[in-house]
């Protein structure tokens, strides 16, 4: 998707694979430069819009995933912190946990130094309390950073969508205006 040279508009040409929408200073110049007639230009812009929508769906799905992951990691950090706090006192932590829907069982967690973390892909590793905290904290920070980048991408994408939509409206407008002028010229000639 090559973007034709723009008429001195300060636009970011692309961001992480998302092509930037070229801002059109003047519709007439744009049409002559790209060599397209009105209908082809409109079709091209519509197609661009569709592509943007597809990417937007993808990014939104990723964002939802991340937003679900972050509270999970925070909960794990909570538990590890509680275990660490209990460590000094020497008393066991009694907890009720869910065995199955609606069925809970009681567990007695003795003073322990090691914590097992589920890393996904059927892998569980044993860590010391500090290592577990560090790992979870790092995961949390990464997730938050990814979320920020994602939000930035979404904003950029939405801007490009807006620019494209406004351009479509303007090209259409211009076309209507041209037809009017032609009509008026035609009338003057005929009368």
């Amino acid at each position: 998707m090559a973007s034709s040279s723009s008429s001195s508009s300060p636009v970011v040409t692309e961001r992480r694979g998302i092509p930037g929408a070229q801002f059109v200073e003047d519709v007439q110049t744009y049409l002559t430069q790209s060599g397209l007639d009105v209908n082809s230009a409109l079709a091209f812009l519509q197609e661009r819009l569709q592509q943007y929508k597809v990417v937007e769906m993808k990014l939104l799905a990723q964002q939802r995933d991340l937003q679900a992951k972050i509270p999970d990691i925070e909960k794990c950090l909570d538990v590890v912190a509680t275990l660490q706090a209990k460590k000094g006192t020497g008393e066991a932590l009694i907890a009720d946990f869910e065995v199955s829907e609606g069925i809970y069982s009681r567990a007695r967690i003795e003073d322990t130094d090691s914590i097992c973390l589920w890393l996904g892909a059927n892998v569980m590793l044993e860590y010391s309390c500090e290592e577990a905290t560090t790992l979870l904290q790092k995961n949390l920070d990464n997730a938050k950073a990814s979320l920020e980048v994602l939000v930035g991408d979404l904003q950029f994408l939405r801007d490009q969508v807006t620019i494209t939509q406004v351009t479509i409206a303007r090209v259409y407008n211009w076309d209507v205006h041209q037809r009017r002028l032609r009509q008026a010229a035609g009338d003057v000639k005929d009368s």
Partner: protein
Amino acid sequence: MADASFTASPSSVRFAVCVFSTPTIKHASVIFYAGGGSETEVTWEDQQNINKFGRLNNRFHELEDEIKVAKETNENLEDASNELILTDEDVVRFQIGEVFAHVPKEEVETRIEEMKEVTSKNLGKLEEEKESVLAQMAELKKILYGKFKDSINLEED
């Protein structure tokens, strides 16, 4: 000569251009009408203003949802601390992560107080941001309506 041809031309067709926020949130639209070939030119600055308005609108809806969730959490914590006062047990099952740990009542009280503080502060911050977003949107509305008058619609559905 009567210009009967005018009524035939699509000058009265309005071309709605919408900026949608995320699909889970009701869409808020910024509609730019291509009304009858009006000649107001759109400069890069105007475009940036429109973009900014769209972003603010999205953020506004996100904030509204976040505020709703924060208020609910606050209420839940209130209910929890009320229940706590009523109960006569010494050990309360307090949810940490996915499990319910047996925690002495006083500690639970302290924890709930802390959580309430955190959520109220968060709520305050969100409300503040919402105010600021609304103010910025009002500013932009003034500017954009000033330039485009009827050709643009910045209201909610």
